[in-house]
């Protein structure tokens, strides 16, 4: 019978009787949908970014970081030394103990990260982030070997001077030569390249701001022996002694994360009374983030719902005005063969076309707001397809719900009275 295109075209013609008034009525729906789309874009963007940051630490991992105890600085021991000095943080023996005796642990990897000036034989000299770590680092970060091999337990045990390159580090260091078996000068010592690895998820390395793929990896034990555990303090006054910057401890499964965390904090509480460590549980962060996100979504939906309600009332108002103004037209349509249902549908479709159109413009405005926020406020935004579908669906639904009463009024118009009225 009536096809959709034709029906909507007719509805547009009918609505064109009062362009300004109709446009004003649609403003409410427009702004409602625009706020829905733009707010969803902003919250989705924020959610994706924070979730990917949390997930990059691994949901079945627990991360323990060495931190300088609050309010302390390296101090000079007046009797023996003159240089301010401070030792803190995780010890190799802590990690060893956890790995060997904790039941819920699958594997662990100690990490030390630092930027070094690196030189190749081709005399390139670039500042590259270096991670000193252990064999299981590959597994806990879900990194894969592209060529050669990763660090092996024996590399550390025998203090071998070997290194593995992340995919991006290969590009910065060896643009034109095959890096395998090349030599690399790290911190004044020659290391041989034995492999190339890639982290497909493009994760950020623990204890660093760079991607895993940007790093060069050397054995943790080799680093401790060659470079030692003592280095200048960050603020330049004195020396600090840190054995391990961070440890990634992988639980047997997600379910083992919280028991493991409890046991770990219990153990560290007794062995590190100075609180020179920090435990980060990505899973807990994830849960917390998800629940705050849920609250945020509920609040936002309520706000969007109210603005759509207001918009819908505006539509109802204008449609009622339309009906009483077009009584004569309704009467004439009835005389020409429209039954009550035809009239009802006509006004319902008009209301839905009006709000649907408002919704489309609102979606466009939502895109504009999201783009503006992204460009000028430097906030990440994501416009999920479902939010566009939701925006359009909701606006058409608003037209249907709030158009129903005016449409009923139109269908109830008595054609005789309507035709007689001047």
């Amino acid at each position: 019978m009536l096809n959709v295109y034709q029906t909507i075209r007719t509805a547009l013609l009918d609505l064109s009787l009062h362009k300004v008034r109709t446009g004003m009525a649609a403003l409410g729906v427009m702004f409602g949908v625009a706020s829905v789309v733009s707010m969803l874009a902003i919250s989705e963007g924020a959610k994706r970014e924070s979730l990917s940051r949390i997930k990059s630490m691994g949901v079945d991992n627990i991360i323990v970081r060495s931190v300088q105890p609050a309010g302390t600085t390296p101090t000079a021991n007046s009797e023996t030394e003159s240089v301010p000095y401070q030792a803190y943080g995780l010890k190799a023996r802590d990690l060893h103990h956890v790995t060997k005796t904790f039941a819920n642990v699958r594997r662990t990897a100690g990490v030390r990260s630092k930027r070094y000036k690196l030189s190749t034989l081709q005399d390139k000299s670039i500042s590259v982030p270096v991670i000193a770590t252990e064999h299981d680092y590959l597994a806990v970060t879900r990194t894969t070997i592209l060529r050669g091999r990763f660090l092996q337990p024996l590399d550390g045990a025998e203090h071998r001077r070997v290194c593995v390159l992340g995919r991006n580090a290969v590009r910065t260091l060896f643009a034109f030569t095959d890096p395998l078996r090349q030599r690399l000068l790290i911190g004044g010592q020659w290391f041989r390249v034995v492999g190339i690895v890639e982290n497909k998820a493009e994760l950020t390395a623990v204890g660093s701001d760079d991607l895993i793929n940007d790093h060069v990896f050397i054995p943790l034990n080799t680093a401790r022996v060659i470079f030692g555990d003592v280095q200048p303090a960050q603020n330049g006054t004195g020396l600090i002694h840190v054995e391990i910057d961070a440890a990634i401890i992988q639980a047997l499964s997600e379910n083992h994360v919280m028991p493991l965390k409890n046991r770990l904090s219990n153990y560290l509480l007794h062995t590190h009374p100075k609180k020179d460590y920090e435990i980060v549980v990505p899973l807990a962060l994830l849960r917390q983030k998800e629940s705050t996100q849920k609250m945020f979504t509920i609040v936002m939906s309520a706000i969007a719902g109210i603005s759509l309600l207001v918009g819908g009332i505006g539509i109802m108002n204008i449609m009622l005005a339309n009906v009483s103004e077009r009584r004569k037209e309704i009467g004439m349509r009835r005389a020409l063969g429209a039954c009550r249902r035809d009239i009802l549908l006509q006004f319902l479709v008009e209301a839905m076309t009006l709000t649907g159109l408002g919704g489309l413009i609102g979606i466009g405005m939502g895109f504009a707001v999201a783009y503006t926020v992204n460009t000028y406020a430097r906030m990440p935004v994501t416009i999920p397809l479902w939010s566009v579908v939701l925006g359009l669906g909701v606006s058409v639904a608003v037209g249907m719900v709030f158009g129903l009463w005016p449409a009923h009024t139109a269908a109830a118009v008595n054609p005789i009275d309507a035709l007689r009225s001047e």
Partner: protein
Amino acid sequence: MPSPIVELRNIHKSYLIGPRRLEVLKGVSLTIHRGDYVAIMGPSGSGKSSLLNILGLLDVLDAGQYMLDGEDVSRLEDVELARHRNTKIGFVFQTFNLFPQYDVLGNIEVPMVYHSRPRHERPDRARELAERVGLGQRFDHKPNQLSGGEMQRTAIARALANDPQIILADEPTGNLDEKTGKGILTIFDELVDNGRTVIFVTHAPEYRKHVKRVMTIHDGMLLC
């Protein structure tokens, strides 16, 4: 003798006006045959408009029987009444009642929409009707760009959209000057010549010269 196209038997109709019941039609009976050219005349308040509404199936009767084209239409549902109005009756009003948002062809197509005539046929049919009533080439004009005569010609073309047997015209020249009115009445003459039944409802005496029969209604009763 073929069966009459319209047959009213003892029609009663009353309206509630406030607390009082006002009897408007007090037992009207009439018979109109195919090809008849009839004027129902009477002063205002005589029940003329009520009779028109009942003949046009816009109103339902209280008592009596209405046979339309051999079918009893006295007590039909809304959808059935709408279908009969759409296909069997064409309305022409004094005030034209065109749709201001549609052009000439759009106005003529409205009854076809409710008749679910295939969409591709509608513009051709509308154009043909517009030409038949002498609208020339003013197809894409909106009603406010038309003269009174052109508006009434559009309304007649619209009434003819679904090829109805009966044309009901309520004071069709009432808003037109004499010369234009004559032109409009000529169109009705031609419709009768082509076998259609035309019923005027009017109080203007000039219709007498055109029609074959005049019925006079007075105080809810028909005087023949």
